[in-house]
Every structure is written in structure tokens, then in C-alpha cells.
């Protein structure tokens, strides 16, 4: 596919329209159609906005895919609550994911508009942006944009304050209960659910947590309508998705494509992959697929996760790749529960041994056993998802693991 076609295609997309070039001022954003949704939302009944988002079929883009409108409705239902919060999860820590960074870098107005509309719809007066420490270089520009947003809110007569908070290098803080703990100034350890954040969240108040990409879809839905949004994509995955493609491809980058696009189309036609041995979809906690899986659609019905896609060519060792994946989880496990804290450590040790040719047949059995018990007994999503890729790899590339023992 020629890059010209690609560019023109991306320009018409829901989010790429705003992020293919840097949108530097509120005026530039307005010229692209920005703040039109805010204007409409201001005049609408909050519940009508929520019903519109529900009808659109929008689901969380951070990986879990929870219906966004339902989250909003739950938080909004606590009408007697003295305070409610909206949190924008900008703790993009998944390996190979950088799509939220591109939104934050190129058009922060887009997600801020979504954040404000979420506030109007749910009745929250305060919005927090939880930015990962590695994106601290965006602090100044985001603070500036928040200031500009304050002026705009004054003009629109909307009472909503936005606060920027920065993490300190912990992958686990992308998990919503950990994120809340971190915002409260504590160790970012996950908490038992239920209660879910829309009922009992930040400082014990109803809280909606949405990913940067998720709330960046809101303005489009408000302006163009839920029906038009739900027409895009597949039955259970409405809309488009931003994919972060990296690894053995000619053109790594962010691509916005309609939900349900085939893996092969994304990595070959768009990112220019030529030699494909394996593809990791969803980052470190995602699935490992082989070159015979390229027809699988990228959507909640197929595979998706956060949309991080890493391509490996035939020169890459799967055992080494999995060792590095498990090293990541060993370091990022918060240590609260035993299966995750010990399991990741032991799996890493075994893979490290196998990678240096010192493995035994028993090791493969051990890997399978620990991986499956971790996925069923870990406390939070980090531990339960840590071995998803490993279990795929043990099946798809069994011969490679066999050669390592």
C-alpha cells in the first residue's frame, strides 16, 4: 500500500484526524471541528449523554474492554454522593504500547474534551490525569493545555477542574485499583473488587477511570451520533482502534484501523512486515501468535488487548523472547500476592536456564504447571495475564522449547 493512500485514509479516522499532525492551539483544534461536542454536551441532559455512549457500543481501549457507557451510568447513579471523580488513565505501561503518548503529544485537546464531557455526564467536578513517569517530558505541555482548558470551561460556564498527577515508574499502577491507591499517595497495590471504582473509588467516592484513547472517542460519538459509531467495526467491537506496531517491521508507528481488521493486514500492508515468525498482540500480557494466525481479526471477539503489536522475524528466539517477557513481570509484580511474586520469579529462572542450554524435560512441565496456577490464583490482572503469552508460546513453538532442554 502506498504511503499516500495510508495518509489520506488515516485523516478521515475518528482519532487520527487530530493526531497525524501536531495540533498546537485551541484554535487549531476548533478549526478541525474540536469543542463542537462540548458545546452540544453542555446543552444536553447528562443522562442523554450516557445513553448515547451506551448505545454507541464504545468499550475500554486500555485492554479490558468494559463498556464505557455502563461505567458512566454506574457512577452517575450515586446521585447522593458529595463528590465524584473522573480519572484519565495515562499510565500506558504495556510493552510495545505508545498510542496514548501520540494523543497526549499531538492533540491533548481531544482527550481533554472527552474528559470534560465525562464530567458533565456523570456529575463529577474533578478530573485527574494519571500520567506515567516515563512521559514526564509531557508535563509542561499538558499543564499549559489544562490552563487553556480552564479558560474554555469558564467561557462555557462549566464547573470542572483538571489535575495532572505523575506516577513514579510502576507498571501495576495501570490497574485501576492500584492507580487509585497511587493517587491517594500510597503504594500502588491492587485492591479486591468489588466494590468497583464507579461505586467506591478515589477517596471512597464514585470514580470513573477511562483510558486516554477511550475518552478520545467521546467527542466524535457526541457529534456524529451513537448509530454512526456502532456501524463501524464488528458486532461487539464498535469503532476504530489505535495500534502501536513495533519490532521487525519497516514502518513502526501508530495506525488507526477499523475494529476487526486482520492481523496480517496491519503488520504487512501498513507496517511493512516481510518476515513474520511470531506476533505478540497486547504487549507483554498479550497473546503470542504464529504466521498461520494472520487471518485472526483484531477486535474483542478475536485478539486485541491494548493494541500493542510486536512483530518477530525468524531470527528471533522464542525462548529468549519469553524470558524477557517474564523478566518484565518479575520486576513489575507488586509483590502483594504469592502466585505472582514467586511464580514470575521461578518462571524467569527456568527460562533463563533453558535459554543458556541448561534446561531439562521437567522444566517444560514445570512451566506449564506454574503458568496455569498463576493464571487461576493471582490476585489481580497482572498475575493472571502474565503467563498468557507463555502458554501460547509453549504450544505454538513447542519444538523450540524442546530443543532448549
Amino acid at each position, binding site marked *: 500500500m502506498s504511503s499516500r493512500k495510508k495518509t489520506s485514509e488515516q485523516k478521515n479516522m475518528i482519532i487520527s484526524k487530530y493526531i497525524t499532525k501536531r495540533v498546537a492551539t485551541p484554535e487549531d483544534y476548533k478549526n478541525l471541528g474540536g469543542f463542537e461536542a462540548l458545546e452540544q454536551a453542555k446543552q444536553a441532559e447528562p443522562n442523554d449523554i450516557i445513553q448515547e455512549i451506551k448505545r454507541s457500543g464504545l468499550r475500554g481501549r486500555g485492554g479490558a474492554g468494559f463498556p464505557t457507557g455502563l461505567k458512566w451510568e454506574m457512577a452517575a447513579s450515586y446521585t447522593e454522593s458529595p463528590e465524584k471523580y473522573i480519572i484519565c488513565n495515562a499510565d500506558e505501561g504495556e510493552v*510495545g504500547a505508545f498510542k496514548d503518548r501520540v494523543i497526549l503529544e499531538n492533540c491533548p485537546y481531544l482527550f481533554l474534551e472527552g474528559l470534560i464531557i465525562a464530567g458533565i455526564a456523570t456529575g463529577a467536578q474533578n478530573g485527574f490525569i494519571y500520567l506515567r513517569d516515563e*512521559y*514526564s517530558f509531557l508535563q509542561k505541555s499538558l499543564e499549559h493545555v489544562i490552563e487553556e482548558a480552564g479558560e474554555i470551561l469558564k467561557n462555557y460556564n462549566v464547573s470542572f477542574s483538571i489535575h495532572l498527577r*505523575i506516577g*513514579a515508574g510502576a507498571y501495576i499502577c495501570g490497574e485501576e485499583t492500584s492507580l487509585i491507591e497511587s493517587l491517594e499517595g500510597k503504594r500502588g497495590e491492587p485492591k479486591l473488587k468489588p466494590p468497583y471504582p464507579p461505586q467506591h473509588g478515589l477517596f471512597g467516592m464514585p470514580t470513573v477511570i477511562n483510558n486516554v484513547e477511550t475518552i478520545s472517542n467521546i467527542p466524535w460519538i457526541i457529534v456524529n451520533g451513537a448509530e454512526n459509531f456502532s456501524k463501524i467495526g464488528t458486532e461487539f467491537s464498535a469503532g476504530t482502534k489505535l495500534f502501536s506496531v513495533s519490532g521487525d517491521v519497516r514502518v513502526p508507528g501508530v495506525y488507526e484501523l477499523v475494529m476487526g481488521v486482520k492481523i496480517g493486514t496491519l503488520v504487512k500492508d501498513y507496517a511493512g512486515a516481510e518476515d513474520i515468525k511470531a506476533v505478540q498482540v497486547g504487549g507483554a500480557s498479550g497473546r503470542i501468535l504464529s504466521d498461520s494466525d494472520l487471518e485472526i481479526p483484531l477486535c474483542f471477539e478475536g485478539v486485541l488487548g491494548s493494541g500493542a503489536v510486536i512483530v518477530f522475524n525468524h531470527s528471533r528466539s522464542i525462548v529468549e523472547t519469553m524470558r524477557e*517477557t517474564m523478566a518484565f513481570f518479575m520486576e513489575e509484580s507488586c509483590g502483594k500476592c504469592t502466585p505472582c511474586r514467586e511464580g514470575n520469579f521461578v518462571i524467569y529462572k527456568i527460562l533463563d536456564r533453558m535459554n543458556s542450554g541448561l534446561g531439562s524435560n521437567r522444566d517444560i512441565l514445570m512451566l506449564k504447571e506454574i503458568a496455569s496456577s498463576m493464571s487461576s490464583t493471582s490476585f489481580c490482572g497482572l498475575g493472571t495475564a502474565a503467563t498468557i503469552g507463555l502458554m501460547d508460546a509453549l504450544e505454538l513453538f513447542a519444538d523450540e522449547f524442546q530443543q532448549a532442554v
Partner: protein
Amino acid sequence: MKTDILRDLKKHRAERGALESKDFQVIGKNHGRSITDIYSVATFYSETSPKKRGKYRINICKSMPCRMKNPDTILQLLKRELNIGPGEVTKDGKFSIHLVNCIGACDRSPSMLVNEKPYGNIDTNKIRDILNELT
């Protein structure tokens, strides 16, 4: 906001290069929390770790997309030029090297952060330029 302990911890560390019990005491007092409580928060996050760091923290991404583009040659060069390994600080306290997990710059791999500033598509020439600029 009164709960922004991470910001305070980072500020203290930036001023002194490391965090000591005095820092935890001051921050604890400001936030109405115990010294052990603040210490437990600080040790949870990699960027508020009490350990001594250089004035310039060089965080090299070691996650898969960057690792695939050979950051080993970058690490070797930094080791040679600065005479320290990962986790160590130069004698003058100016630099420290750290191998870190994905910094979200996989479209420009290999990548690294020097304090807050990201550098993408780095190679040995670029590293030399960056070091020259900082020394």
C-alpha cells in the same frame, strides 16, 4: 493536592541525589503520615527509590522492541565512556545508568531517557553527542 507524595519524593531526590530518613521525616510531617509509611511508598516505585542516582539518570529501555534493535552496543559504549555499569553512579555523582522497562518509545527504538528527556533511534554517535552536551 495534599496526597501528591510522589512529587515530593521526586523533588527531594532531585535536590540531594538520594533519599534519607530526614527526607521521609519532612515529607511525612507535611502530609501527616509516619516516616515508615513514607518510606514504604518510596520503596514501591522505581523512580522514588531511596538509592543514590546520578544528576543525569540515563534510563536505557531494555524491553523487547528496543532490545531487538541492539541496545547492547549502547550499553557497552556507556559503560566504557562512564566507567560504570547499570545501577551504578559515577564518582563525581554526575551520571548513573539504569536498564528500565518499556518507556513507550517503541516507534523510535532503541530509545532511552536522560532524566525526563526521551531520545529515540539512538546509536553510538548520538550517545557521544548527548554525553558531550552534558559534560
